[in-house]
């Protein structure tokens, strides 16, 4: 197991390096001079002299690879620069907005599991019956539904008409329900079907036949034996979805005025706040990769076959 962890963690390094490279290059694709952009964002007229001074100050007059190395050294020390707009440290702003998004993503995961697990398993057991058809329709609608529209529908019907939940913002537990449900919705359908498929496959496995031969009740077979095995692919999926939710959160957070990473990212894009865009991208990319790593490790922990194969290779 430890060998597997070492191998998996070291394979992360080149990818993290790649992420930093892409993020760095992206910012140098900016049309126009970053120094001029900085001056404009600070409402200072970008005269030749001012631009030249600032270029020297920011190190923009050095060759690109030296700029990259200097930037990388700062990044490793968690210095992502200063926002053009708020003049605060990018890292501190990100930390301020990160927790609300994590909260949202975890609440969504709970919704996904609580809703898709029972319906997925039941529709596998009663295959072809009305519940199966129903779950198929739900799955179709859920992947085709624009998240921002669903958000507004929920606000309109549940908050405005029925007054069940607060409309916007973050605060109490009730504030969390609608945004996380909106964020979870596309995944609910997917996981429902995924669970159905994996349950169906496992129901034909020899261990189920054996359990039946032992005279175990069907309910016990499903809840004790099949469930455990069917959950594995869902677990991997969820970990990857957790990373994707960070980007899905951009839309959901905008709809619900949720002060998370997504809002921060979109505000910085609309403001052309380049260090902030860069910081957010780098941070979310790293989080995404780390999520995938954690999934792999959990998976290996739960399913011994994987760490064996991983060790052999």
């Amino acid at each position, binding site marked *: 197991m430890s060998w597997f962890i070492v191998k998996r963690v070291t394979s992360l390094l080149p990818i993290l390096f790649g*992420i930093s490279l*892409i993020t760095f290059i992206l910012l140098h694709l900016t049309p126009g001079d970053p120094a001029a952009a900085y001056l404009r964002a600070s409402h200072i007229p970008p005269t030749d002299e001012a631009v030249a001074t600032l270029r020297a100050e920011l190190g923009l007059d050095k060759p690109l690879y030296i700029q990259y190395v200097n930037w990388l050294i700062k990044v490793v020390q968690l210095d992502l620069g200063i926002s053009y707009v708020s003049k605060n440290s990018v890292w501190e702003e990100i930390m301020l907005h990160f927790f609300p998004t994590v909260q949202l993503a975890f609440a969504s995961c709970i919704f996904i599991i609580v809703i898709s697990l029972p319906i997925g398993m039941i529709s596998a057991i009663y295959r072809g019956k009305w519940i199966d058809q129903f779950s198929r329709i739900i799955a179709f609608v859920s992947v*085709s539904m*624009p998240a921002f529209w669903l958000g507004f529908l929920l606000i309109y019907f549940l908050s405005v008409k029925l007054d069940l939940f607060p409309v916007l913002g973050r605060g109490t537990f009730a504030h969390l329900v609608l945004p996380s449900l909106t964020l979870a919705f596309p995944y609910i359908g997917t996981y429902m079907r995924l669970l159905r498929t994996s349950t169906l496959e496992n129901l034909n496995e020899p261990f189920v036949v054996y359990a039946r031969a032992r005279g175990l009740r069907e309910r016990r077979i499903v809840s004790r034996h099949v469930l455990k095995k069917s959950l594995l692919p869902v677990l991997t999926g969820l970990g990857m979805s957790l990373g994707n939710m*960070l980007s899905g959160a951009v839309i959901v957070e905008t709809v619900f005025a949720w002060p998370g990473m997504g809002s921060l990212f979109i505000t910085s894009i609309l403001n052309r706040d380049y260090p902030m865009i860069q910081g957010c991208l780098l941070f979310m*990319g790293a989080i995404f990769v780390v999520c995938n790593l954690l999934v792999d490790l959990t998976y290996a922990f739960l399913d011994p076959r994987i760490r064996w194969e991983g060790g052999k290779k």
Partner: protein
Amino acid sequence: MLKNVKRKLLSHKLIMISSLIIFFMTLLALFAPFLAPNDPNLVDITHKLQGSSSKFPLGTDHLGRCIWSRLIYGIRTSLGTAFLVMGLTMIISIPIGIYAGFRGGWVDYLFMRICDILMAFPSLLLSLALIGILGPGLGNLILAMVLVQWIFYARVIRGMVLSVKKQNFILAAEVCGTPTLVIVIKHILPTIISQVVVLAFMDIGGIILAISGLSFLGLGIQPPGAEWGMMINDSKPFFRTHPSLMLYPGMMILIVVIAFNLFGEALRDVLDLRKE
């Protein structure tokens, strides 16, 4: 075989329904100037936020623009942009995927490492960042989506090529001394193209969703152009009093996306590509 596929296509209820919807939408888009009762971008504050009437079938928005006309013109934007994005993605990813898969060696290795890095980001996030750097607008939106998406298709196509490459008919062609380019165009491309088309159709719905999402965020088409996502964004301040402003465009997105998703899935079933 073709006859068999045709028969299956016709008997498949889902394909019939979904292609009818898509066909109908395309007609609406093509004949938008004749079917729209009003100029979709004509601002007339005196008519703002009206209910449905004979002049405005679905009422007007906060600037007095005809919602029905804007919805119809919105089909042009959504479908047009989605197909353009998909087309450009294919133009980039098919040659690259085939080249990496067929050539193998260091080209393939380099390609896979680029995949690792680009796919380390959630794709919407990278598109967003690109738009943030290039600036909002429909052209930049298309560019950003294509630049991010091609890698996914190129990778799948590479995989397809790898499995086709080992088959006997390709080996036979190689033994006969057929030039590589001829092998690729005459043998490999026709073998994989149907799978690629199915893949593309299955994703069109997702692309339409992404485009409307980005427009909703104000990063896509700029005012006064008509786009469903942007219409929903425009309706934000009024949706409590005038929910229909947000209801109609969302409904359009949902219908179109469901139609394309159904079509893609049914197409996959008919062509029996599930195993791959």
